[in-house]
């Protein structure tokens, strides 16, 4: 198989996949979901068949295009329907509520207490009693909402303190 033919197929596949990536609207990998990763694996396998001429470029486009059309339809559904959005993207789960872990939610996320402690420490907190809610967001990042008494002092608090002292 001549090298230039492989190069032509590679260039075509590159341009096509670049167009698909741009059309998806994402700019960074950080924005990708686990399912985007699954799609990347499938497309990675398809491109292999196209590069080594096991299938025609039209078949490659047909297969890859179908995957991207499905993905676009699912994203459209998730955009228009809250129910579809939850199915596709999952939802945030409260692992810790008012200082106590939620065993059911932890199991649902396949986490244990050590994972939760790690997640809380990474956000710079040690005492669970100070936390009102510790959430694992749908992108698996974590959010911590502190209990009212544990929130850092604000300018208003300083004013109140000054009033008390006076």
């Amino acid at each position, binding site marked *: *198989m*001549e090298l230039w*033919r492989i190069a*032509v*197929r590679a260039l*075509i596949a590159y341009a*096509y996949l670049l*167009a*698909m990536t741009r*059309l*998806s*609207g994402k700019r960074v990998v950080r924005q990708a979901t686990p399912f985007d990763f699954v799609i990347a694996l499938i497309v990675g396998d398809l491109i292999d068949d196209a590069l*080594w*001429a*096991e*299938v*025609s*470029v*039209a078949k490659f*486009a*047909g297969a*890859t*295009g179908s995957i*991207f*059309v499905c993905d*676009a*339809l699912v*994203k*459209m559904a998730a955009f228009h329907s809250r129910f579809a959005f939850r199915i596709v993207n999952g939802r945030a789960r409260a692992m810790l509520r008012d200082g106590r872990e939620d065993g059911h939610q932890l199991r649902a996320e396949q986490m244990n207490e050590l994972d939760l402690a790690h997640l809380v420490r990474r956000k710079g907190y040690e005492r669970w009693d100070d936390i009102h809610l510790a959430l694992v967001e749908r992108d698996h990042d974590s959010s911590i909402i502190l209990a009212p008494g544990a929130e850092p002092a604000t300018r208003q608090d300083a004013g109140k303190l000054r009033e008390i002292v006076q």
Partner: protein
Amino acid sequence: MKELIGVLIATALLIGATAIFVRAGDRATLVPPPEAVAENFVRESVAKQWSRAAELTSSRDEQLPKELQQRIEARVGEPTRIEAEIVSETADQALVTVRLSSRQGSEAVTFALAFEGEWRVGE
């Protein structure tokens, strides 16, 4: 909606461009070349993937890969090496020899391929 339309347009453009190039005479760049088709046909036959092998033939007959597999198994056993080579090629016809080898021996099978939008194994 924009994304969906964009994907459909890009895919249609690529499929259309492939069809135009093939019509203009491309027989090995945007479609699998005859030696790749013949080699693939033998590999699928050896793996007993009858329907996938039959897809690569003009007749779509599963009998052809079955007979080939039995012949190869009798003479070579399980081949460890499969290589295809073009003997002759015109715009719509090609002759390809596929060599199979194993510890048991080696065998060469020659296929006539016809171009029907893509190369297909004839006999």
